[in-house]
């Protein structure tokens, strides 16, 4: 299946979860705000949310320091 993440098309295996996709991108899920099809996803749903063909995903990743 194909999704669009931050404007870029990506091929993913069927039933890939949001958490699995973040792991593929080498991102710590705790430091990422994820929006799937314009809905902000709560952190406790990342492991259960299965992505679907055509999903549009926006990720905002934070780095430390303040």
């Amino acid at each position, binding site marked *: 299946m194909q999704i669009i993440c931050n404007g870029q098309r990506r091929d993913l295996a069927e039933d890939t979860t949001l958490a699995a996709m973040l792991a593929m991108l080498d991102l710590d899920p705790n430091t990422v705000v994820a929006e799937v099809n314009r809905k902000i996803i709560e952190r406790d749903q990342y492991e259960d949310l299965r992505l679907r063909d055509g999903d549009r995903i926006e990720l905002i990743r934070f780095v430390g320091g*303040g």
Partner: protein
Amino acid sequence: MLIVNERPLPFRVGMRMGDLVDEIKPQADVLLLNGMVVGRDALLQDGDVCSLIHTGEIPSALEMEQALDARHSPEVQEKLGRATVGIMGLGGLGSAVAVSLVKVGIGRLILADHDVVVLSNIHRQHYLIDQIGLKKTRALKAFLVHINPFVAVETRDVKLDSRLIREIFADVDVLLECFDNPAMKAVALRTVLTHMPGIGYVGASGLAGYGSGNTILTRKIRPRVYIVGDDESDVRTAGSLLAPRVGIAAHHQANQALRLLLGIDEA
């Protein structure tokens, strides 16, 4: 016409500084005429700007207001004076943002942090050596009162989470995310986007090290929601946090907060 302590006063030929002191501020012990220190017998000319200062005296609320109005304009100051701003995290970002916003005369600040001032904070955060060991909320409030005692500064000595963010900052006009921890930065943005629609928000990410200051930007990610930083300079990769670059990011945040309060929704 003269300007004496920020206010216009009719000029009379032959007036001396001492006349002003007797008339306006008998306790004044430092006299400035157009910025220069002078004595009581200095002769005044029409158009002179005079300051009569009693060393150590705290100006009245009205005097502070007039000084801010004169510099920022009454229109701007009226908006800032009735604004409430929340600051989450009182480290290098949050303490600098708070100082900047108190200086411009924001009406009310709500400051939240649970940390204690330690020696390793002093190199970049607005705390004093003799405040080591105090709660940051208490220490920063004490510092801010020395800048402008007429700003209402409320403090919350708590470790913030999503629920507390919603409770504590429910009625702020603009909320500033100044956390150090990237997971908390994400928690805050998730909370705001999900539960606090319409609120002004300025977060930060990517400000470590001493890379170019010109790479720190303010980016708009949603209506009234902004993130400041270079998006990549992590403490782990770019090195420690240094006062200059953290300060650049903090002042981007403070400036964007100001812009939102003045009705400008652009970076």
